[in-house]
């Protein structure tokens, strides 16, 4: 440990300003290189991107000592950090985090395509020395993060179902964290995709949009179970056409949602995606991803990442509680029959069994699990006149190929409800108490099981 805590210097490790690294070869010839980024790993380690086989790299392999100069992007404080090279990582969460960060920096400096990460060189921090103190005052942060976190956790504590969790979360992100552009995606338990449950701050909500792990900031955060942050958003990690093309090219394309585009700011300056991780290790541990973006560059720093990771931890805990509550829910309410709707032009609802896609009056609505749920509800209604349903009966319905965890059922219902609200005002799903919901039809329906 050194007298100065590296954690207190994280603002100088954002890559906002290039740094310099000095090394020395075995013959005693020193060398200085300009490097784009020194990355904070933990209070005792940093990582430096290995992009080319440079003299710096040759030197540290022969003589592990190095020294870097860090500059605070706002106060101009300088620190000299003495380092000792330990190892190089070529894959994994740290590598992916640095790769995303580097792509953002390269884009910012007009060097996209020139910077390519070959490895993350890990160094132990041996000594930190103050070279020059603050020349300028530290600006006020845009949000008092601890306070925002405390207020948000206080409100989320009262959420007893996924529905209220999603609504409270979006409200807290906007009100407490001042993040107007956010998305919540849930992971399919098989982990082959993420689907958008809710968003705010976009002209089109994109609810129901899916992406594959590894695509863009969200997909990489999901695949690596690590926060991914772009201080300068870059085309390398933006969504849009390339992502949809990749979805369509996937072997699972028939099962993936390719018709609903993921929303996004056209002029995105910064982006952050944090994984929502449950207790299970590995692939099963991923519950979802929380994503925020801003037109402002440099909006998300290490502190924002910490705060959103804590928030994501709380979301994971509440999702687990909701799932447990749903498992134990008693299916006691008597079935409620509908008052028949006889007025108005019937809605023609077409279902394609191959991918469970649903079209209402020839307009695409949704496919996959959400489509299967809606078809099950409408079919039950047509046969029995019943309009009230429980989550539990859906979980037991064999024709709905539901994932294992019930938090996913609730999330699918939320996305179905939101998608209907956006696309079909005559067909509404309302909550009807805990673990129950009601189908409200303003027009008669005509159900057609279509051939592919």
């Amino acid at each position, binding site marked *: 440990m050194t007298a100065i805590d590296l954690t207190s210097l994280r603002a100088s490790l954002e890559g906002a300003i*290039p740094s310099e690294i000095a090394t020395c070869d075995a013959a005693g*010839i020193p060398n200085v290189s300009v490097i784009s980024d020194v990355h904070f790993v933990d209070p005792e380690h940093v990582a430096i991107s290995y992009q080319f086989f440079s003299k710096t790299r040759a030197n540290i392999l022969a003589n592990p000592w190095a020294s870097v100069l860090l500059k605070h992007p706002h106060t101009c404080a300088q620190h000299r950090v003495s380092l000792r090279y330990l190892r190089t990582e070529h894959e994994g969460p740290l590598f992916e985090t640095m790769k995303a960060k580097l792509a953002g920096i390269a884009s910012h400096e007009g060097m996209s395509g020139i910077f390519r990460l070959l490895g993350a060189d890990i160094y132990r921090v041996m000594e930190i020395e103050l070279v020059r103190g603050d020349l300028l005052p530290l600006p006020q942060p845009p949000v008092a993060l601890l306070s925002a976190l405390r207020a948000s956790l206080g409100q989320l504590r009262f959420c007893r179902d996924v529905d209220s969790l999603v609504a409270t979360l979006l409200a807290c992100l906007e009100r407490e964290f001042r993040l107007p552009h956010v998305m919540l995606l849930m992971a399919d338990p098989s982990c082959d995709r993420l689907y958008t449950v809710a968003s705010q701050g976009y002209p089109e909500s994109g609810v129901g949009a899916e992406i594959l792990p590894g695509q863009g900031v969200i997909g990489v955060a999901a695949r690596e179970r690590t926060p991914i942050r772009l201080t300068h958003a870059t085309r390398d990690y933006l969504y849009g056409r390339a992502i949809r093309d990749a979805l369509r090219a996937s072997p699972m394309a028939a099962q993936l949602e390719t018709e609903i585009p993921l929303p996004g700011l056209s002029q995105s300056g910064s982006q952050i995606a944090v994984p929502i991780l449950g207790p299970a290790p590995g692939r099963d541990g991923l519950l979802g991803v929380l994503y925020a973006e801003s037109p402002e560059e440099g909006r998300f720093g290490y502190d924002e990442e910490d705060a959103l990771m804590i928030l994501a931890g709380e979301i994971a805990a509440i999702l687990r509680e909701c799932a447990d509550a749903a498992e134990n829910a008693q299916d006691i309410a008597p079935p409620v029959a509908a008052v028949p709707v006889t007025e108005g032009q019937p809605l023609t609802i077409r279902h394609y069994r191959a991918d469970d896609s649903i079209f209402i009056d020839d307009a695409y609505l949704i496919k996959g699990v959400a489509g299967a749920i809606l078809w099950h509800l409408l079919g039950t209604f047509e046969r029995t006149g019943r309009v009230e349903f429980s989550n539990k009966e859906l979980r037991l319905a064999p024709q709905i190929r539901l994932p294992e965890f019930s938090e996913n059922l609730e999330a699918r219902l939320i996305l179905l409800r939101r998608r209907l609200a956006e696309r079909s005002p005559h067909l509404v799903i309302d909550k009807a108490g805990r673990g129950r919901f009601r189908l409200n039809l303003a027009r008669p329906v005509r159900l057609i099981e279509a051939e592919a």
Partner: protein
Amino acid sequence: MSLDPAILALLAGPVAICIAGRDQDLRPSLCYAYGCRAMDSGAMLRLILSRSEAGPVLRDIAANGHVAAVFSDVRSFRTLQIKGIDARVEVSDPADRTYSQAHCHNIAEELVTLGYAPGPAQRFFTAPEESDCITIAFSPAEVFQQTPGPNAGARLRRGETLAGSKTTPDAAS
């Protein structure tokens, strides 16, 4: 050796300068310099440092004379590195101090022209106080192309210019 006019022009322009030395155990040290005066067509370079910032670098250079200095043009990222083995620590003369003030002033102006709002970008290039100035003098032994990218580190041979320089990728710097 004297330096190519294109190199001298780069040194005289708005360049951020960082210099390194090393101790007897081959541990490197580094700090910023706030101006570089090229004497005798670059046969001798005088780098102006802040004594209070440069402690380990001054100690190392005084001990063994090894130095590496990187010059990076704030407008173009064009960067080169010059190394020497005869560096010594000298008292800054009045011309060094005046040069350092003018150099930092020019960079600050250039950054405003480039669109950086007055603030941290300019303050990074704050010349040392007169009483804090110290000079490192050395004769260039080798010059390397150092602009970020795969050709960084190529040695520049005598007569080669920075613009369109022929590079020798095997001579990595």
